[in-house]
């Protein structure tokens, strides 16, 4: 047992910090720290390119496909430092979801076609998994892709396609074999500009649009856009999820939130003293910081493959449950710290453009939009209730 960061890891962290100091500008950091969803598109494309120049755009990819060859701990340190420094959050769909899948399961032609533009950040991806009748329950997918000559003809409807509005490409779960109930699901790459693809924005609870409904109406897709063998999407999806086992903890965001909340509470005054010194508020903040630190170490345990009496998939669900419930609590604490001024809603554009003032300090824009948006985090990516089912089953054998 050795619970300290190695000298190499500490040196790595210093290197990341220096890089971040060198490249990030105050304007970009300001916009990142609003925590508005989705982040400013120009910023993230620029940052993707900057990181790519350094070979750091795709920490989770194999070296031969452009990854930096970091250990899991180094990836974790990198993400944490980026968040704390206020770097824009890159789009996940290409770099973290489909990219690794193409590296692992894609054909050489697919790798050659798609990986470079993901690394450069010049083509954006959308994910088409959920459907109106199938949220957490992928077995009841209805979208079909039936072979007609050398093309699949795709029909169906996808929901919760995050950032689908300006994506050039999409990866979709489709049924290529309609005879089997549980098999026959494949992963298909679809050009979002194909005829028959219609994208409808969904206005979210915070007044912004971050996710879309995608209608697929006789969309013709070249046969070579299928990833791997027909019917193998279950394997690919499991790989994709295992690859992101710890990210649902949202641990770097949680630490960033705590910083912002402390800043708010140091300025806000209650009973003539800083809110941060109100004993009940201080205790509530300490409680959350303690929970976040514990979650951080839970992430480290998974990353380091720490021994456990229970399967690692149970640990992933534990991270998701605690991470998302902490997001709820952090969001609420953030608006509670701001008091009534948290009631003002800033749209994305207003938040990015806001000029801080005495009445509306720098930590106000975005706090409420983030709090409202994060009500979704106990629902997306496998709802809380589904995660509890998983834990009961695989950790305790209860079903």
């Amino acid at each position: 047992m050795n619970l300290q960061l190695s000298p190499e890891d500490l040196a790595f962290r210093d290197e990341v910090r220096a890089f971040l100091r060198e490249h990030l500008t105050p304007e970009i950091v300001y916009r990142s720290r609003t925590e508005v969803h989705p982040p400013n598109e120009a910023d993230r494309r620029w940052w993707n390119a900057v990181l790519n120049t350094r070979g750091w755009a795709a920490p989770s990819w194999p070296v031969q496909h452009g990854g930096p060859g970091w250990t899991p701990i180094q990836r974790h340190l990198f993400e944490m430092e980026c968040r704390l420094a206020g770097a824009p959050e890159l789009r996940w769909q290409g770099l973290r979801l489909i990219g690794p899948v193409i590296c692992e399961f894609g054909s050489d032609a697919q790798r050659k076609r798609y990986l470079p533009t993901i690394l450069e950040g010049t083509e954006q991806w959308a994910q088409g998994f959920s459907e109106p009748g199938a949220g957490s329950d992928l077995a009841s997918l209805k979208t079909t892709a039936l072979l007609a000559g050398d093309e699949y003809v795709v029909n169906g409807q996808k929901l919760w396609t995050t950032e689908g509005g300006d994506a050039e490409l999409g990866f979709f779960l489709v049924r290529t074999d309609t005879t089997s109930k549980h098999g026959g699901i494949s992963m298909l790459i679809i050009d979002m500009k194909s005829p028959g693809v219609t994208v409808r924005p969904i206005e979210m609870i915070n007044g912004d649009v971050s996710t879309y409904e995608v209608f697929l109406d006789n969309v013709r897709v070249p046969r070579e856009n299928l990833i791997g063998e027909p019917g193998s999407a279950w394997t690919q999806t499991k790989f994709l999820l295992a690859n992101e086992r710890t990210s649902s903890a949202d641990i770097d965001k949680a630490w960033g939130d705590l910083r912002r909340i402390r800043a708010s509470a140091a300025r806000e005054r209650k009973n003539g003293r800083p809110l941060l010194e109100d004993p009940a508020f201080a205790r509530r903040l300490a409680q959350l910081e303690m929970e976040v630190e514990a979650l951080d170490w839970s992430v480290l345990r998974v990353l380091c493959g720490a021994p456990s009496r229970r399967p690692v998939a149970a640990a992933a669900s534990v991270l998701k449950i605690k991470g998302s419930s902490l997001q709820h609590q952090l969001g609420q604490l953030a608006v509670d710290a701001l008091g009534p001024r948290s009631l003002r809603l800033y749209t994305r554009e207003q938040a990015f453009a806001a000029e801080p003032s005495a009445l509306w300090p720098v930590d106000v824009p975005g706090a409420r939009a983030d709090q409202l948006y994060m009500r979704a985090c106990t629902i997306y990516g496998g709802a809380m209730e589904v995660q509890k089912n998983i834990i009961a089953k695989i950790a305790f054998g209860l079903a």
Partner: protein
Amino acid sequence: MNFALSDEQKMLADSAARYVRERCDLESRRQAAKSPDGFSRRHWRHFAEQGWLALTLPEDAGGLGLGLADMVVLMEELGRGLVAEPVVDSAILCGTLLAEGNHAPSRAELLPRVASGEAILALAHLEEGGRAEYDTPVAARATPDGDRWLISGTKHLVCHGPAASHLVVSAEVAGEMGYSLFLVEAGANGIARDDYSLIDGTRAADIHFSDVPATVRLQGAGGAARALHHALDRAVIAGAAAALGSMEAVMDLTADYLKTREQYGQPLAGFQALRHRMAEMLVETEQARSLLYAALAALDGGDGEARARAVSGVKALVAQAGMFVTGQGIQLHGGIGVTEEYAVGHHYKALQLFDKRFGDSDFHLDRRARTAPTH
């Protein structure tokens, strides 16, 4: 002791429920939130015609002179329909200040127009550094100038400020201890506004006063704080009733959803964990409703301390229960719950608004903790 509604209360509840059911669909609510006023002038006229704005205003000034219990009955139904109109701000909060103010001419002239909906009143009181209307610092100044005052200062988060015809403004007169309350016309010279939207679509404003002339002082420094606290207490009760309406609406919506929506081959209602959540939502809603009754009893009979205690209890408990119930309503709906396209998220935001207006739960728990317990 008798909890049954009177025939008049039943009629009031029925007519409000019918209007909400027939006219206050979500689509019109969303359109109203995107309109310049942030609410519907059509609804507002209807409220006035039905006498709902006049309900608790005094009979000698165009009101119906009914009690808080009647108002609670009405507000719960309006809350079910996500009322966006300034009933609480204009008719209850500022209406109370005007009705109980020390200026007979403005009371006689303006209150009937409040009751008819023609005038809309807003409270301009919160300032920089203030977290609750009950104890915000007041830096605004009123300088005597002949038989009037000139008001200067900046007011924060004036709800419905953009649509208001009149403002009730707090400001301190040099040499006096504590603020006074003045009535000014919203279009007076020297007033400048920065408008914005709140999370539920309510329009609010920061309002800058620069030597704005005021001829009406509703309350002097001796009585303003007490009068304001009394009016705020009434506004809290009204808001709590609306919040309760939201909670009931969310429970109905969610129970229906669980019965119809299928997952893994069965209705969601087949999952015990979800059914239990509904039970927990009812438990918290009933607690909230009960404390609202306690507050009605205390406001009816109790002394000042008992009233503060009861109102602060309602404020904290209804906010907590309401955020839980509407938050779980979202959770049980899944993805559609976090969109603008479904009512449950709007109710959630209504509760977040209720939580932060008129002092948050911490403020009210502290206020309650300073009072003597019931037993």
